[in-house]
């Protein structure tokens, strides 16, 4: 009598054809435990079965790349024998169900991915997206999700002792039932300190370390691979609970244990915990892993093999030690008061063999789980489009100063201090530039090198054109790094999309990945890994296609230039020129969103070759110390960028006189790329550098005390005191969070 009925198979989110594949790989019926193991390893979350055929298009090679996709994190070389490990991962679904723990364990998971490679995490960034806070129907819930997510990130990162140095926070109706929480972490180590997740060496002991295994998080990976329905609330027990203190001990103990030289391979227990760590480590090394669940430290009594193998209890690691030297490793964990127990041994047969109460309860080839998951080339048509082709008439005459203030006080553009003041962004004293800057900069102590990092996404652009939108955000991310003087080196990415079984959603995924591939190749920032989060739909409503990129660059350690104007009387030079914009390219802007409440047309046009030259110019100017401030144009366009430089300075503004054919709305607020505003004592030097790099540069005005004036051909468009611009910008988020709404 088989316990595996069609209902049981369906409940594990396996299709009949996937079950047939399991039968043929095993040559027999699986046990229930084996079925559970297959279900998590073949889930979308673990196997990337819908995206893998397209992810192969991404460039992954480059002179700085030490480790590309396939390991726990990517690794790049930054010189002087120093390497950087970094990765981004989503915790979207858990954060919707339980915002605080969902976000907290998202931070915990990505930190383990970094230190399992031997690197000490030195920075975290978060890209978070929510529904609108003032939406009459969903605002209250969105406010609570935001507060919970921020508190969760703060709780975990602060206690662990890693600074949260930047990120992005966006509000859009499309994330109403599907908030996005993408967490990035970066660590630093020496080339000779790199560890891999490989179970090498037949006969070597397999050791379990860290927190005890409980029943929490069972089936988290498969939950993250399905759409949300009304029943999803019942999945709350699937969300794990994090303990950052335990993770801090685990970090210190693992790094110390690695120094003994007795560790052969190590991996964290992430999604599907014991299952993924054992079979992936075995598969990478081409070995078998045999474990006995009776030795696993357990938090509860009477757990079944099924529950233990699928538990996603946090703060656990699996490592393989050199036979005969296990004591050296165990001693370190004992010093840190952590459980460390040998639970198994590396075998030659390539099998994952699990014993419980003296019986073999699972016996599956590691490769079948880790490498032979089904791959789908899912059908795709044209990308789903919700926006109109053409927009409304763009107003020719308005109070542009009032519009600018409205934009500065809008959810996406306002100051995010309310968020990042809850994050310790300075611990470990490496943060040269933290939250609220174009890109975060962290020095690497003991060297003359710093790393810069930034996260960028833009669901609106990608909703209009997933391919061009994705290229634009790679360009913007590289521009952010260049604006702080860093050379972009490598990319990690988090692809957030709806249900890939819908051909129009699959088309968004394909277009976006191809755009990502093209831009990463062009800007020479190969992809070292990332994460794919699909099924971000609630009751059939998908999110905007939202790829998020995290790009890392390097620069020489120095006091950062920053975006703030430094004094009155500096010349303002716009590198890249004023740009052009047609009405159809204005529909994705913040002006269209906030002032006109519309989305239409195409994203801004990008000339990648030109963009690259602009970036080379600003890097050169920063390196030579030729500018006093630098800030790139992005959301909100020219007027918002100038206002931000003024607000950050607290006291200096600008007197700008433009000479453009563009209508005022387009001139002030279009979001054309390839533009960086600098203030300088030597405008001629900046202009010469631009000429040398074959880009436009326009001297548009001077900095002055406490006022921002923007004219076009001597007609005043914007005129405001700096403190009036700051006021709304500073307080908007707090006001939005206090919006009284009906529950």
């Amino acid at each position, binding site marked *: 009598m088989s316990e595996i009925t069609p209902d049981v198979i369906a409940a594990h989110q396996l299709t009949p054809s996937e079950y047939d594949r399991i039968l043929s790989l095993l040559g027999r019926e699986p046990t229930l435990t084996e079925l559970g193991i297959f279900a998590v390893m073949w889930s979308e979350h673990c196997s990337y079965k819908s995206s893998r055929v397209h992810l192969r298009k991404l460039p992954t090679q480059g002179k700085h790349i030490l480790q590309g996709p396939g390991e726990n994190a990517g690794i790049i070389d930054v010189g002087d024998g120093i390497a950087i490990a970094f990765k981004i991962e989503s915790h979207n679904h858990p954060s919707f169900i339980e915002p605080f723990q969902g976000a907290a364990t998202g931070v915990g998971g990505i930190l383990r991915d970094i230190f399992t490679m031997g690197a000490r995490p030195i920075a975290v960034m978060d890209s978070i997206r929510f529904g609108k806070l003032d939406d009459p129907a969903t605002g209250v819930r969105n406010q609570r999700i935001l507060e919970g997510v921020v*508190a969760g990130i*703060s709780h975990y990162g*602060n*206690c*662990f*002792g890693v600074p949260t140095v930047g990120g992005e926070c966006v509000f859009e109706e499309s994330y109403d039932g599907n908030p996005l929480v993408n967490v990035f972490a970066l660590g630093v180590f020496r080339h000779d300190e790199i560890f891999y997740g490989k179970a090498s060496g037949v006969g070597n002991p397999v050791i379990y370390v860290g927190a005890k295994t409980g029943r929490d998080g069972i089936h988290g990976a498969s939950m993250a691979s399905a759409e949300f329905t009304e029943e999803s609330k019942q999945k709350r027990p699937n969300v794990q609970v994090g*303990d*950052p*203190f*335990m993770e*801090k*001990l685990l970090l210190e103990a693992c790094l110390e244990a690695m120094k003994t030289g007795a560790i052969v391979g190590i991996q964290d227990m992430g999604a599907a915990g014991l299952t993924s760590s054992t079979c992936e480590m075995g598969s990478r090394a081409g070995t078998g892993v045999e474990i006995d669940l009776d030795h696993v430290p357990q938090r509860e009594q009477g757990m079944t093999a099924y529950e233990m193998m699928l538990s996603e209890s946090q703060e656990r690691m699996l490592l393989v030690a050199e036979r005969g030297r296990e004591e050296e490793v165990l001693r370190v964990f004992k010093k*840190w*008061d952590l459980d460390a127990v040998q639970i198994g041994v590396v075998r030659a047969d390539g099998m994952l063999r699990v014993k419980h109460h003296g019986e073999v309860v699972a016996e599956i080839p590691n490769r079948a789980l880790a490498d032979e998951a089904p791959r789908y080339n899912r059908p795709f048509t044209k990308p789903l489009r919700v926006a109109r082709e053409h927009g409304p008439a763009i107003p020719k005459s308005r109070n542009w100063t009032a519009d600018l203030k409205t934009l500065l006080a809008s959810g996406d553009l306002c100051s995010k201090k309310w968020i*990042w*003041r*809850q*994050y*310790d*962004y*300075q*611990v*470990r*004293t490496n*943060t*040269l530039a933290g939250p609220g800057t174009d890109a975060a900069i962290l*020095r690497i*102590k003991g060297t003359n090198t710093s790393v810069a990092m930034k996260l960028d996404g833009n669901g609106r652009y990608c909703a209009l054109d997933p391919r061009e939108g994705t290229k634009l955000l790679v360009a913007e991310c590289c521009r952010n790094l260049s604006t702080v003087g860093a050379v972009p080196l490598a990319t990690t990415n988090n692809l957030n999309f709806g249900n890939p079984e819908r051909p129009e959603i699959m088309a968004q995924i394909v277009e976006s990945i191809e755009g990502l591939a093209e831009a990463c190749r062009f800007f020479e920032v190969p992809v070292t890994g990332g994460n794919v989060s699909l099924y971000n739909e609630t009751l059939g409503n998908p999110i905007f296609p939202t790829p998020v990129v995290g790009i890392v660059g390097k620069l020489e*350690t*120095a*006091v950062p230039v920053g975006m703030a104007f430094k004094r009155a009387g500096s010349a303002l030079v716009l590198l890249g020129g004023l740009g052009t914009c047609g009405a159809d390219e204005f529909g994705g802007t913040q002006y269209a969103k906030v002032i006109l409440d519309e989305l239409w047309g195409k994203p801004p046009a990008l000339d990648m070759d030109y963009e690259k030259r602009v970036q080379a110019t600003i890097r050169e100017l920063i390196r030579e110390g030729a500018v006093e401030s630098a800030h790139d144009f992005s959301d909100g366009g020219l007027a918002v960028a100038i206002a931000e430089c003024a607000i950050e300075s607290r006291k200096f503004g600008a007197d700008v006189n433009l000479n453009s054919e563009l209508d005022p709305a387009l001139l002030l607020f279009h979001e054309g790329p390839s533009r960086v505003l600098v203030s300088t004592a030597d405008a001629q030097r900046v202009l010469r550098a631009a000429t040398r790099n074959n880009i436009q540069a326009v001297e548009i005005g001077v900095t002055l005390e406490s006022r921002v004036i923007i004219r076009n051909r001597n007609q005043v468009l914007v005129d405001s005191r700096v403190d009036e611009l700051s006021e709304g910008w500073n307080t908007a988020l707090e006001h939005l969070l206090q919006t009284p709404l009906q529950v």
Partner: protein
Amino acid sequence: MKVGIVVFPGSNCDHDAWYAISENLHHEAEFIWHNSLSLGDLDAVILPGGFSYGDYLRCGAIAKFSPVMQAVRKFAADGGLVLGICNGFQVLTEAGLLPGALVRNAQLKFVCKTVGLEVATTDSPFTHAAHKGQVLRLPVAHGEGCYVADERTLDELEAEDRVALRYVENCNGSMRSIAGVLNAGRNVMGMMPHPERAADPLMGNTDGLAILRSLTAVRELANSRL
């Protein structure tokens, strides 16, 4: 000058303190594991920031039972200099080496920002290099930094000139804006702000050196007085 930096499980500003003392100020600094029963030959001890024992139960409540705290108590009783920063301040109040307590911030949220602090007394080994009334800009990063004590204790602290630092902007609701206090012997100080985070010109702020230099100059000062 030799400074010991205590490492509790969960301390996470230990390395920052070490870096400020050894790399920015070029004095000897060493870590002391929480299980140590003695401190060895030290001129000063720093209890660093972080989340000792995960801040479980209450911040600092478990750390006070740590073996090393016996040694710290003795060191302080013998007149040794003890500086508690952030979590270290919380540990010192829990251990009874300083009066009062640190409770949840008034706004109920973690706060990380740079705030103004008035040096309320220069009559201490931790503040003598500053001027009275000088405003230092120092980073704070804490969820439980609201200083509370009964009225009598607060009056006594003020009467004995034992309030070392006061917030210019009271960022956590502390009574009488107290950010740092001294013990009766003036050789133990706790402060919520982080001087070690403002000790390097690269970080854009060196106001913390006023505190750390006071500490590391103590021995030279004593020698010069001999």
